[in-house]
């Protein structure tokens, strides 16, 4: 297990390779369909949200307010990333994102952007909302809550020991591409 702490350095990101298990600590910003489309259409980030050397997490958490009025994340697994494929590469390059956490993997454009700008794709365990919510130690802030609704808002989360697997690295390798080709060949033998 490789420990990663935000802000991520270029060096630590370039050292990662497909299949590495990582444990993430620091700040992550959630962002999914509405945020990606908005940023891609030229929308601006709130000034408090700095993605440079940072992490975008494809996640729409369940967040409740406790009796003291504090936000509390009660479920927070990754959502399917491929929907952001039209936008992700440009956003990685424009904002200097160093890692994207999600599930299901992404396509060639994102893979190329990862290689070009030194970024990795980290695969969380889809559906593991409780294990991953336990890794969220604090909600630091929320942006666009009114505009996009709770699952689509940008939540600024402080995480500790968040487990993930590198499935697309900064050197043009993708576990998703490998598994697809191998499984396609295995299926062809069985038809």
């Amino acid at each position, binding site marked *: 297990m490789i420990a990663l702490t935000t802000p991520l350095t270029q060096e630590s990101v370039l050292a990662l390779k497909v*299949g590495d*298990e990582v444990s993430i600590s620091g700040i992550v910003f959630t962002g999914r369909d*509405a945020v990606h489309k908005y940023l891609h259409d030229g929308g601006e980030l709130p000034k408090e949200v700095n993605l440079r050397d940072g992490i975008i997490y494809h*996640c*729409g*958490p*369940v967040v*409740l307010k406790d009796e003291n009025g504090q936000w509390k994340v*009660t*479920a*927070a*697994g990754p*959502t*399917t990333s*491929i929907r952001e494929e039209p936008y992700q590469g440009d956003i990685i390059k424009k904002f200097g994102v160093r890692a994207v956490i999600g*599930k*299901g*993997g992404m396509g060639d454009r994102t893979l190329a952007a990862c290689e070009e700008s030194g970024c990795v794709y980290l*695969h969380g*365990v*889809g*559906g*593991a*909302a*409780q*294990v991953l*919510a*336990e890794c969220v130690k604090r909600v630091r802030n929320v942006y666009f809550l009114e505009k996009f*609704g*709770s*699952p*689509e808002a940008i939540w600024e989360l402080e995480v500790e020991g968040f*487990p993930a*697997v590198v*499935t697309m690295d900064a050197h043009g390798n993708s*576990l*998703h591409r*490998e*598994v*697809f080709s*191998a*499984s*396609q060949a*295995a*299926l062809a033998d*069985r*038809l």
Partner: protein
Amino acid sequence: MTALQDSLIELIRRTSADIPDDVHQAILKSLENEKKGTIAESALKIIDRNIALAKNKSQPLCQDTGSILFYVDCPVGMDQMAFEETAKDAVRAATKKGFLRQNSVDSLTGENDGTNVGPGSPALHFHQHRSPEIKVRLVLKGGGCENVGAQYSLPNEKLKAGRDLDGCRKVILDAVLQAQGKGCGPGILGVCIGGDRATGYEYSKKQFLRTLGDRNPVGELDELEQDILKTANELGIGPMGFGGKTTLLGVKIGVANRLPASFFVSVSYMCWAFRRQGAVLNGSGGIEKWLY
């Protein structure tokens, strides 16, 4: 609040937080089979820990608490409209308690009013039976796995799939290949051979009411279910698509009549976080016993 509303809130809580035992057992078996020290094994261990945590904390197994699908077997004369109103109130209350995420969006405006109640949500399927009891089953189906569902129209030239069981096999396995890990595998397939475009998908989802260990009473469908399960698990897609031995936990196939001109095969994919529960209700709406 009525006893019925209490029962439905409890049904939603259980469905969201507590994985059915048949699914949990299948996950434990796949964890045992997976090669030690692989990322596939790591993923299954996290899944198993997640199942325990969700149950102990009464919190959603997965943050995508899904489409809310009620299947109600009711006696002749039951007021279905009143039941539907109570079910909607139960959904609103369960959302406030965090058993369900604010998960329902107006498709025109993009607005999410935070209640999970709106056109088409929740979905209720009523079926009358000649028995005094009410049986209510609930399936919560997340969007990630819903998005990898697929409907094929046979013949399919590209897949060399004709209008026979071998053609059905080819398209079902194609759906597994295309889904890879995107639907949060290891998954469970619900399939309908036949029907029209709407009923095909509807019947495919009804297959999720069956338990994983049951066997199809129709010989050729049973054979096809076992064959798809075995073949899919030889493809090496594995949990989350990380590579590995378990790609599917189960396959359930039903049939519906079709028109001579149509031959649809509809495949619904359910994620490992298979949320399905049900209860028999007594005359006053209280829970008499659990169905799974």
